[in-house]
C-alpha cells in the first residue's frame, strides 16, 4: 500500500469529523511515514509499520471528544405523505386545473376586450383620415357646407382616436405590471413553501 492509499483510506473512515481534525490527523501520520522512510525503510514497509487503517481510524474516533457533525438532512416526503398525495389526486387535480383555466380565461377575456378596443381605435383613426380626405374633396368641388361637416367629423374622430390610443396604452401597461406582480407573488410563495 502506498502512502496516498493509506491516508485516503483513513480519510474515508473519518468522514463526519470536522475537516480540520481530519487534516490534522492525516498530517500526523503523513509526517510519521516520511520520518520512517528517512530512516531508510521503503514506503510500503513504512506504511505497514503503522498498523491497519481500521485500527488507526478507530483510535482517532474513540479519542475524539468532539461530536461528529451531522450532515444536514434533506427534507424528504414521508411515505404516508406520498401515498396521500397520490390518492388525493382526483381531488387536487381538477382544482388545480380549474384555477389554471380560470386564470387563462381571464387573460383571454382581457386580451379580446383590449383587442376590440384597439379595433375601435383603429376604425376611429380610419374615419378621421377618410373624413379629412372628403373635406378637401368637397372643398375643391365648392361644397363648403359638406366640407365643413367632414372637417368636424375628422377632428372629432381624430381626437377620439388619439385619446383612446393613449388611454388603451395606459391600461395595457397597468395590466402587464399587475400580472407580473401576480406571477412574482405566486412563484415567491412557492419558493418559500419549499
Amino acid at each position: 500500500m502506498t502512502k496516498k492509499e493509506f491516508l485516503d483510506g483513513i480519510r474515508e473512515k473519518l468522514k463526519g469529523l470536522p475537516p480540520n481534525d481530519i487534516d490534522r490527523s492525516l498530517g500526523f501520520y503523513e509526517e510519521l511515514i516520511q520520518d520512517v522512510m528517512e530512516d531508510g525503510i521503503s514506503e510500503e514497509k513504512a506504511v505497514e509499520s503503522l498498523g491497519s487503517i481500521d485500527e488507526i481510524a478507530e483510535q482517532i474516533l474513540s479519542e475524539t471528544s468532539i461530536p461528529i457533525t451531522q450532515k444536514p438532512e434533506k427534507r424528504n416526503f414521508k411515505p404516508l405523505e406520498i401515498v396521500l398525495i397520490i390518492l388525493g389526486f382526483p381531488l387536487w387535480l381538477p382544482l388545480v386545473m380549474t384555477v389554471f383555466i380560470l386564470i387563462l380565461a381571464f387573460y383571454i377575456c382581457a386580451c379580446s376586450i383590449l383587442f376590440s378596443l384597439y379595433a375601435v381605435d383603429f376604425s376611429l383613426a380610419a374615419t378621421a383620415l377618410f373624413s379629412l380626405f372628403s373635406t378637401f374633396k368637397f372643398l375643391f368641388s365648392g361644397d363648403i357646407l359638406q366640407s365643413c361637416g367632414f372637417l368636424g367629423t375628422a377632428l372629432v374622430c381624430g381626437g377620439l382616436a388619439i385619446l383612446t390610443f393613449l388611454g388603451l396604452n395606459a391600461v395595457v401597461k397597468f395590466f402587464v405590471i399587475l400580472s407580473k406582480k401576480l406571477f412574482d407573488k405566486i412563484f415567491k410563495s412557492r419558493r418559500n413553501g419549499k
Partner: protein
Amino acid sequence: MDIQLKRGLLDICVLKTIKAKDSYGYQMIKDMKPYIEISESTLYPILRRLETAKHLTVHSVEHNGRLRKYYHITEAGLERIETFKKEWNEIMSIYEFIIREETDDDKERIS
C-alpha cells in the same frame, strides 16, 4: 498490563520524551520503545489529549523541505511528571506492603 494503568503511564512517558528538549512523533516512539510498548496509532491520540490538557504545545519546524511537528512541554506538563513521581512513591510503599504481607503469611504457615 492493565489498560488504564498503561494509559496513565504512556502519558507520562510521552511527556518524559520531550522533557529535556522538544521532539517529534517518530523520535518519541523510538525513545519510548525500549521501555514501553507503543504503536504509532496510540501515540497520536495521546498527543491530542495532552495538547488539549495544555501539557504540551505544538509547533512546526522545517525539515528536509517539509514541515515537521515538534512538541514542547509546558509548565503543567512538567508538573504532571512531578506529581506522577510523588504518586509513584506511594505506589511503591503499597507494593512493599503487599510483598511484606505475603512473606509474613508464608512465615506463619511455615511455623
